[in-house]
């Protein structure tokens, strides 16, 4: 810096010098993120191309998405370290000095509840429950759809109360262990009790997953920093890594609040029953309560139920149903209420899902029907609209960060009457965080989750045949005359035909329902698998579990909230507990958890069997672990399921769930929460044992000296 100019204590830096400083800075941050996501990306690509042998669809778009994820993570992490975490810490430092306990608790509740509304995990849960049918699990359906607002509120209240208790813990220096004993025992008993009610049984997975997903990448660092600040001004003489534990409580309390909400609502919903029965006159009034309106229920039935169930809604009178459908043509408002907004919603339904009679009730004649079928079935994928994508994600990122930051700033300036230290840095950091989160979310949407959906859904191909939907295509002008018959050794006849592909001729099984004689179209979806062993063979399932493990392991290493936790732990222990050790332990745990979660879905094991034993084991290990590791270990459970893991895991969980036909994909995430606690506590036990051994070595010397 030869041409420095001193003016008001500041050095003016030329553009070239600034660039020379910024380049290595940016490079180091980006390289760090490349390292953190490399494993999961390489894994996904290799799995898709080498194991499945399928080219990656939309590869260039996915590449752009992945680049955005990396850039977004770099910005976001820097934003956390410059902006959000210092802001949380300064409040933590000043609040106990300047306010009384009720004010602190009020602040804590608003923070907890606000954070939940700011980072709504409800979309994740809705995705996990997208295949839930109202007749199979009425209460679950109600909570995910009509009453999802209540669900969010109960989670928010749970997190709010959790943060309050977290603050009380810090102020009075209470151990985390009693909280864990009480909450976990209560939860296990509550879950066991729920097991005996058909409706409640279905929501236990949702409740446990709520606990896992509520603590997002903004909440966790903010709450951690706040806790660390508070512990620096209260607390005892220890310099230890206090300040942890809120995340644990924020993972446990929402489970309780959701289970309570479920038991309150459970009296007003019908029990699970068969589809046709559900819509019959006897149950119709109760069933209607699950929907916003009668039209909503009709629309749902038309879209999702079998024809006989639809008929049940019209008391089995087909004429009445068709009359109703054709009547909708002239009543635009009513049609919108049934089929959703949009001019073509009803036609699309009729063309794609309606029976022949329903089609003729909607369309004027056969040719109109044919045209509509061709029109709607050719629309394979929604086109990507960049401006809409940007706007939506800017909004989501701003919503997650700005209101909470403003709340913190207001508390700092108005309530505590303190000025913000290094304000310029903090504001820059907040800006970085918003930009980072936006880029990162866009990247996930167009890159990571596309890739994850392509791969995740195909993990079951290890043990069974899986349809490759994005390779679905249609053969025009299909002639049924080319269909041949083959015979199996057992004497079963199967139909197939030859197709000419790019590389040669191949056989395809002929399925009657995929052939539309009117349009002369044959729609086919190529299948893949089982890759290892026969259909449903144990060897294939084990391979799928290994894939699941690798997916969980790799995704966890890229999670921003876990990175923030790791940095904090390393910082507080002055490097004695390395971030990498913590992250490896957690990632291993998540991998095992996800593999177990997949096993749960494959073999349809009740959740209580999957969660009960680990949690009971955890209670024992918690008892013998040091306070420090109990805090860190339990907190890492809350941070594992973040924006990278969740879409990938859900894609796989739902893929497998869909393949093996279970009601919902819940439970994997809660497995991914419990196992890392175990692994971190085990590592903790090992480390403590070593340290104790070293100290005992010295104590032996001491005894020898005393003896001498």
């Amino acid at each position, binding site marked *: 810096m030869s041409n420095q100019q001193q003016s008001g204590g500041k*050095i003016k830096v030329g553009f070239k010098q600034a660039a020379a400083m910024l380049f290595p800075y940016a490079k180091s941050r980006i390289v760090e993120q490349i390292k953190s996501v490399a494993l999961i990306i390489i894994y996904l690509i290799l799995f898709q191309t080498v194991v499945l042998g399928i080219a990656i669809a939309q590869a260039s778009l996915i590449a752009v998405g992945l680049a955005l994820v990396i850039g977004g993570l770099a910005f976001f992490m820097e934003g956390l370290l410059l902006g959000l975490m210092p802001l949380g810490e300064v409040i933590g430092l000043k609040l106990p000095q300047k306010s009384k306990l009720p004010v602190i608790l009020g602040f804590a509740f608003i923070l907890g509840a606000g954070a939940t509304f700011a980072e709504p995990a409800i979309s994740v849960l809705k995705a996990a429950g997208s295949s839930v049918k109202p007749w199979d699990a009425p209460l679950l359906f109600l909570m995910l759809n009509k009453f999802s607002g209540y669900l969010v509120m109960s989670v928010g209240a749970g997190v709010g109360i959790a943060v309050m208790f977290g603050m009380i813990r810090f102020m009075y220096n209470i151990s985390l262990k009693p909280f864990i004993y009480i909450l976990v025992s209560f939860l296990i008993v509550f879950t066991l009790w729920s097991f005996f009610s058909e409706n409640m049984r279905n929501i236990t997975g949702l409740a446990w997953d709520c606990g896992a997903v509520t603590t997002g990448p903004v909440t966790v660092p903010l709450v951690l920093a706040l806790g660390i600040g508070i512990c*620096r*001004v209260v607390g005892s003489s220890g*310099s230890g890594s206090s300040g942890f534990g809120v995340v644990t409580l924020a993972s446990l309390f929402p489970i309780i609040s959701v289970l309570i909400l479920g038991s309150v609502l459970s009296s007003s919903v019908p029990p699970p029953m068969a589809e046709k029965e559900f819509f019959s006159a006897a149950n119709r009034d109760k069933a209607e309560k699950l929907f916003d309106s009668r039209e909503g229920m009709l629309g749902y039935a038309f879209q999702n139920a079998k024809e006989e169930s639809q008929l049940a809604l019209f008391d089995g009178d087909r004429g009445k149903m068709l009359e109703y459908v054709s009547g909708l043509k002239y009543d635009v408002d009513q049609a919108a209420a049934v089929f959703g907004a949009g001019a073509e919603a009803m036609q699309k339904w009729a063309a794609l899902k309606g029976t022949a009679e329903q089609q003729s009730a909607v369309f004027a004649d056969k040719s109109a029907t044919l045209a509509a079928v061709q029109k709607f079935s050719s629309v394979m994928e929604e086109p990507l609209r960049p401006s809409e994508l940007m706007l939506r994600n800017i909004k989501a990122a701003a919503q997650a960060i700005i209101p909470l930051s403003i709340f913190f700033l207001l508390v700092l300036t108005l309530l505590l009457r303190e000025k913000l230290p290094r304000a310029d840095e903090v504001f820059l950091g907040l800006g970085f965080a918003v930009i980072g989160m936006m880029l990162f979310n866009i990247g996930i949407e167009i890159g990571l989750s596309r890739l994850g959906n392509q791969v995740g859904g195909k993990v079951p191909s290890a043990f069974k045949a899986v349809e490759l939907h994005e390779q679905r295509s249609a053969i025009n002008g299909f002639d049924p005359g080319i269909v041949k018959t083959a015979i199996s050794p057992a004497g079963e006849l199967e139909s197939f035909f030859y197709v000419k592909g790019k590389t040669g001729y191949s056989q395809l099984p002929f399925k009657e329902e995929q052939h539309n004689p009117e349009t002369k179209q044959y729609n086919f979806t190529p299948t893949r698998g089982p890759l290892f062993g026969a259909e449903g063979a144990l060897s294939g399932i084990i391979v799928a579990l290994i894939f699941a493990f690798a997916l969980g392991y790799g995704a966890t290493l890229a999670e921003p909230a876990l990175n923030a936790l790791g940095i904090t732990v390393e910082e507080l222990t002055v*490097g004695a507990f390395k971030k990498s050790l913590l992250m490896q332990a957690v990632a291993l745990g998540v991998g095992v958890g996800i593999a177990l979660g997949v096993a749960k879905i494959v073999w349809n094991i009740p959740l209580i069997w999957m969660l009960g034993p680990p949690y009971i084991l955890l209670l024992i290990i918690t008892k013998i672990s040091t306070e420090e590791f109990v805090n860190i270990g339990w907190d890492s459970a809350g941070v594992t399921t973040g924006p990278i893991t969740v879409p990938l895991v859900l894609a796989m969980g739902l893929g497998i769930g869909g393949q093996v036909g279970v009601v919902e994909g819940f439970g994997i995430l809660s497995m991914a929460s419990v196992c890392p606690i175990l692994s971190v506590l085990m590592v903790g036990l090992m480390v403590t044992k070593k340290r104790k051994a070293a100290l005992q070595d010295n104590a032996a010397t001491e005894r020898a000296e005393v003896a001498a």
Partner: protein
Amino acid sequence: MSDGKRMARVSAATHRGMAEQIFIKLRECGITGGHLAAGRSIMLEDKKGFLGVGARSAIVEDPIEIISIIAPTEMESAVLDAVVSAGRIDIPGRGSVHSEEIVLLKAHELCVEQPRGCVSGQQGGAQYIEELMGICCIVQRGQGDAVARVALDTGTCVPAITFGLGTGVRDKLGLLRIAIPADKEVVALAASVHDADAVMELMIDIGRLDEPGKGFIHLFPIRKGVVNTKITRGMPKHAASIEQIISALDQIKGGTQWRSRSGMAADGVSSRRKYLSGLSGLSLICDEGRADDLVKAAMSAGAAGATISRLKHVRPQDSPLAQISPARELCDMIVGEQQIPAILAALENAGAFDDKSHGLLFSKPVPKACTFLG
């Protein structure tokens, strides 16, 4: 509130969790307040590797607590004894302790202890080594282990490493400062006066501290202390561990001169290297959040920069000291002796010693230092 009063500063590094006992013991001696910082210590551990492949001595890290007490000079021995007996620091591997003479330049009235307790040590069992010299080295975050390992490899002692934030030119850059990493590691160790120069030399070589932007190293005098010489972890293979033999010989010989090694430093380098001398280490302890402004004030009066680290102020809830926040910051600066009055005045003007900062400023001599000199 006195100008230039000579005091003793006792610093101890112990295993995590032992600080509480030590502070209780100190309270019995009439010392109510002290400071605590988190740190880590490193040791060597022999890794056997797999079938002998990859066998090496690796560094293992342990969390430690660093306690520091400022007390009147006449209480020095009492404080040392209290720390040693409460922490059993006389056993190799349990920690280290040393005392320095400092000049208390100015302090908020609450910060100066008025101890009422015992003046003489009640046990006097511990053997203190008197020929010690402290070495303190500030490097970029991540470089600490490499530099600290010198202390292990030369068998000097177990070093203590803490984190700090560097300020200086960086803070004059405006927002562009974020591009320059401020995170530092501070390595502190105590060597025999006969070896200190050579160890410092090696640390400069390993850390390339005489190159731009690599760091800063300086010596500081230690009056007496107990050094942790248990530098390897693992079961002893002989009737007595090497650490026990060394400490027994130290006691017999009455010092550490018998084990000084002259040929430790690389030959020739030391003659070419330029050192700084006649400097002072200026330390300001103040309330959390004030360090930034106060360091700025000191810099306007000529200080080049500071390393800021976090301290926890430990005191009983019922003492008047409880008015001071437990969250404190320590700003270490290395300045020329003649700059001290100006910096003191600037700090006073900036409110370092008022009720918002509860500042405490002391200095100690720095006989030798090295960094990139341009």
